[in-house]
């Protein structure tokens, strides 16, 4: 049974690419969320081992999801990787305040993502 990773991004291309990378290169079971609300609902339903959240999503942003997840006792320590196309100091700080574990700048290299995720949740291959 491989570990569950939740990936959320409002860009379908990027969402598919991220999910594909984690499945193909990391051998993880990936749950895909197309926006913040879905990410929140699915993570509560599936309790993933790690979450990769895009920051700029409509309605619920990556920060919002992060903050709400942290309020649930069972997910207080779940590693959360934020993905952003901006990457300014103020954003990094906001992510930290919201409870994120790590901040990665887009565009990212697929191998790099797998490597970082693997540090928290061992890959199957």
């Amino acid at each position, binding site marked *: 049974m491989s570990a569950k990773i939740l990936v959320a991004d409002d860009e379908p291309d990027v969402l598919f690419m991220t999910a594909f*990378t984690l499945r193909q290169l990391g051998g993880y079971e990936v749950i895909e969320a197309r926006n913040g609300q879905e990410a929140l609902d699915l993570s509560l339903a599936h309790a993933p081992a790690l979450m990769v959240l895009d920051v700029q999503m409509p309605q619920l942003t990556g920060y919002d999801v992060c903050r709400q997840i942290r309020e649930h006792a069972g997910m207080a320590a779940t590693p959360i990787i934020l993905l952003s196309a901006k*990457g300014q*100091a103020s954003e990094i700080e906001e992510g930290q305040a919201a409870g994120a574990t790590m*901040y990665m700048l887009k*565009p990212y290299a697929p191998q790099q993502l797998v490597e*970082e995720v693997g540090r928290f949740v061992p890959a199957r291959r």
Partner: protein
Amino acid sequence: MNRYRRVDTLLLSLCDPAANSLLQLMTVDHGELRHDYARGPIPPNSYTDIVIRTGAPLMLRNAPQEQAFYGIETALIGGEREPLALVCVPLLNTFGQRFGMLSMQSYTADEYDLRDIDFLTNVAHQIALNIQNATLFKQSQEQVQQLAAETERLELINRVSNWSSATTDLRELFQGIVNEMARATNADQARLLLIDRVRGLAICEAELHDTGAVGQLALPIAGNPAIEWFDQYQTPMLVRDATDDPRFQAAHAVWRASNIRDVLLVPLLVKGEVIGSVGLDMQPRPCSFSEREVATCVTIANQVAQAIAHARLFDQIRRFNVELEQMVAERTAALTAEKERLEAVHTITTALTASLDIDEIVRKTLELAAGAIGVPRGSVLVRDPMRDLLIYRAVLSETEGLSATDKPFDLPSGNLVEWTLEHQQGVMIADVREDERWVALDNTPPEIRSFIAVPLLAADVPLGVLMLNSPQPGFFNDEHMRLLSTIASEVAITVHNAELYNYINEQATRLAELLQVQREETGKNRAILESVAEGVLVLDEADTVVLFNRAASQVLHIADDVVLGRDLRSIAEHGTGDEQERALPLYAALGEGVRGARQQSDPVNRLLELPGQTIDLTITPVTTPDGERVGIAVVLRDITREIESDKTKREFISTVSHELRTPLTSVKGYIDLLLLGTAGPISDLQKNFLQVVKSNADRLNSLVEDILEISRLENGKVKLHIKPLNLPDLINDIAVSLKTETERKRMQLTLEIEPRLPVVEADSKRINQVLTNLLSNAHKYTREGGQITVRAFERAGFIQVDVTDTGVGIPPDELPKMFSRFFRANNSLKEEVGGTGLGLSIAKSFVELHGGDMWVTSELEVGSTFTFTLPVEQGRPAQAEDAHRSINEVANVS
């Protein structure tokens, strides 16, 4: 009493029982009255004592036998022998108080019986009444006497104060004191001595009977017992039996000669200071110098003291007056003489000062000086500074009268005129024929016998010489010399004034012409300044606005009449409401900028943000070509629109760059996935094509990154994370990371790092970027087999890093543009290498943010050296941000 009973002795004692004192004792012994002045305590256990104590009568029939019974110890009182029988009764006053005892005594025993007690008690009662009456009478008499004495004293005070306040003559006062004191004491002789502490003498100033001692008798103060006494006690000194008093040994002989026995010495005190004493002598006489008399003398002395103080002051003032009058008289005499001399000079100078024409002055001087002294001939020489010659500006002779000439003075050197000018002194020759100093010429008129010359000096500068001569030998005297000297100095001043006037006149004319030219010039300048597009505001050195052009008025929204010709402060004070909101920050920025420009004398640039408006201020000190500061010029540019468009541009760049990242993420990600073979196997050709796509996507990505970095730099959003940085380690790391690429091009990379380089304080990420950029450029623009050298060393508080390559080099005309954005130098490798043209611009900005500098030197086809410096001691910014450090930063590694 004897008629009634046998009484050998009658005894009456009067006492004051409260004080236990016996006042008087009176006995009548066989009809003979005897007084006994035994004043003193009541003898204890005497008859008086017992009767006074008990208040009861006492009768002894046989005294020697009964005395012991009553405890009587006293023996004989009054009588010739001890009485045997006696009766004693107390004397009682009307209040029943005991005040004495009456006793009748007999030498016969058993002489008296009880009836005698009654009898004696009656007698005692009568006596007591009489005594009381007598005492009352005596008391009232004494009061009358006291009143009389007091009246006398007041009369004396009145008299003394009357005569003493009536005079300011010290001698009169002194004589008065002597007379009054002698009168009050009936003294035989009286003398007043005044103490002169400076001379250490007491000098006789007055005496009652003239013996010639006044002004003659002078006693040394030192060792004088009376004066020592006065200084210590300030009270009179009464010497009884003076010739026996050892203190006054020195005076004994004198006193004996005058048969003096008692002496009273009274001090004279003025404001607490002993100024003298009065000595009163008395020949032998009973009851001399009673207490009252001494007191009277003190009263007199006190009474007169104030008058003496006044008189002394008056005397002093009078003496000052006399001295002053004398001084005034002397000065008046001197002034009168001076006045007469000045009048002569005045006549001349009044005539002169009216004129500013030098010839006129000189002619008049000569005429008036000759007239005042009474000679017919003379001349005045005046120096002509242009020709450096002395000119006969005025000549007076009997034949030709007064004339002006232009003839130069041409005597051979060593003449008197020369001497006068050189020594700045007048000279007098009594007889020219006998004086060696006189240079005799053939044409010297024979009628010149005596001669006088004085220099004309203005502020010690010799202007010329005034000379007079006379046919009479020894004509001139010292008085003439003084008069001429005075005239000469007056004339010199006048001549000097005239010269100054001429000079000023010329200058004024020249300046007026200059002013006219300048006025025209200023008018032109003003017109130009008025019409320029930039706002111009000019202040003079007193901060008064002297120019405020139309554009300035438009930029600042202030009418020119509000500020023109007023203090700069009027900007702050103008307007109401919204205008005020603008006015205050505007004035603050202007004022601060103007002060800054004044202090450093360099132009100051300020950006002024007002609500909805941004104004660029350039504040420049205005100096004349001579470097004299004349004011401050402020150029105002409304750059609101530039700022706004700049802001829009920056926002646009930022947004576009972010928007580009999202598609780039997909492009780069999917290519990577394809290349990784995650979507199935790919052919080598496909792989090559994908590599081309990937490298172009990377280029696009780095372009986006560079643009974002520039945008952050422009927005001032780049914050440095300053920490101690080990530069040699950093250089090594970068060299290692480039190893693969340098080896591929068979390049040699050499590091020359000075040992023990100080640690710098810097943002390691940014410096890494800088070094990576320089080394990467060196690598890119150097052909295969080339050489790259990195040197790091300390120089003047900075660490300098040189990155030198043996590359293609940079054309000299392109060197200045090397750090401009998007600029890429022209060279053979340009197309091959590619690049955004932003890297160096960013690197230079980073170095500058650290307080360092960056520059380049290069030679075409030889190589380039890029250099940057970092200060060794970099101040740590207050808001160093390390907050996100706990989140791993992957961004810069990707």
